[in-house]
């Protein structure tokens, strides 16, 4: 009996690891999707309503897709240090700290560099900079979705299969 319980635990554990992999893939594409959508809102707020940056960050921290709210909340939290630190530094720290976005090196660099332009230039230039970042993130989103489609079943299969394999050997 104990053997069968152990076998079930091994299969559950490896299966769980496989599902974790699936969840990570899903989270990565959701975060990129959310980021692109929130940048679209940011562009509209800055260009159409000329909303001050603090209000933009507050709005996105509350209404952006759940997966990216942390980025805007961290940036908003840093605004109290404006004057002691530049906005770029505040934004860059927020991007660095937002590990939940699971950005690749390139995407993180592009998003960090956006801080050099945000709030510093006129509306047109900020709009161009935000659009540029969105365009650079879109291929990453396509890649992430492609990877998710391709690897979801693989992760699940390998998770369960490795568990079964281990059980067969151990039994």
């Amino acid at each position, binding site marked *: 009996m104990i053997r069968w319980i152990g076998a079930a635990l091994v299969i559950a554990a490896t299966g769980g690891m496989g599902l974790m992999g699936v969840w990570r893939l899903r989270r990565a594409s959701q975060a990129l999707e959310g980021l692109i959508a929130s940048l679209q809102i940011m562009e509209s707020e*800055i*260009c159409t309503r*000329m*909303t*001050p*940056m*603090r209000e933009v960050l507050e709005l996105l921290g509350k209404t952006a897709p759940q997966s990216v709210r942390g980025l805007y909340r961290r940036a908003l939290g840093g*605004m109290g240090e*404006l*004057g*002691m630190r*530049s*906005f770029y530094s505040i934004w860059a720290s927020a991007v660095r700290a937002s590990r939940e976005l699971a950005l690749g090196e390139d995407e993180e660099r592009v998003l960090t560099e956006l801080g050099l332009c*945000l*709030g*510093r*230039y*006129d*509306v047109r230039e*900020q709009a161009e900079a935000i659009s540029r970042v969105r365009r650079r993130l879109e291929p990453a989103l396509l890649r992430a979705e492609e990877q998710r489609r391709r690897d979801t079943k693989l992760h699940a299969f390998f998770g369960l299969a490795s568990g079964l394999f281990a059980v067969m050997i151990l039994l």
Partner: protein
Amino acid sequence: MTYADRLSERFDGAARLLPGRLRERAERLPAADRAAAEELRLRVGSPAAVLMPEGEISLGGEPVTRRDIELAVEIATGASVHSSQSSMRRGFISCRGGYRMGLCGSVFMSGGGVGGFGAYSSAVIRIGRERRGAADRLLPGLFRDGRFRSTLILAPPGAGKTTLLREIVRRLSSGDGRRPGLRVGLCDERGEIAALREGEPELDVGPRTDILDACPKAEAAMMLLRTMNPQVIAMDEITSPEDIRAVESARNCGVALLATAHGACPADLRSRPAYRPLFEGGVFENTVLIRRDGPVRTYELMKGEPL
């Protein structure tokens, strides 16, 4: 809190618009100097300075860099240059708390007008303040037959026109035992007079004052006339032909006016063609000249039709 404490607090608010290292130097000034300071000045290549009634004093330390001014602009706009774009094209930023940051540097042109600043060379933070009681002796002379008469406050830059305007607005709006308060429509284009923040004035302009903030004076005066039924319309620094047309239109609607203009004396204004419609139409019945000798300001009221 004493008046001197309040003035020191106003200075501290202005110092908070400076980048960290310059702020620390400004905050080290003795309380008496902080209370008397009128402006904070940054010029690339020179140490930051404070304008006192007697003249500028240096804050010492490392010279100001272009980056310092960029940071000050970032603080003043809340990292939102886009929100202050229209005023920056005219060379200033209206900051929270009723401070105004003036800017100089290399300007670039766009669409036939000033597009913005390419590189900053200097900045000045003006410390707007309330001087309660400043208009006490002046106020009775601004009325005739129980009615407030259109008044122009005339002085060179930095003499305290806005401060006096604010105090007269507050007194007119509040009224006193002898006179009821008047409905004052305030055109606060640069946000310096009332320092409106989230709908509430940070500086006291009285209980019966309706404020239009960040709106060009000409449009603001017409909007107030159409919507708020004011008894007095107040505006700071009438300079452009549009402002002067707005003043004339308001006057034709039977509303008393209270305004300020740059100039040492009425003859100064007469020599400028843009102001001709004002003195040809006899718009203002009172002129207040502000004379300044160091920290002491005296007000001279010229009644009748000096323009």
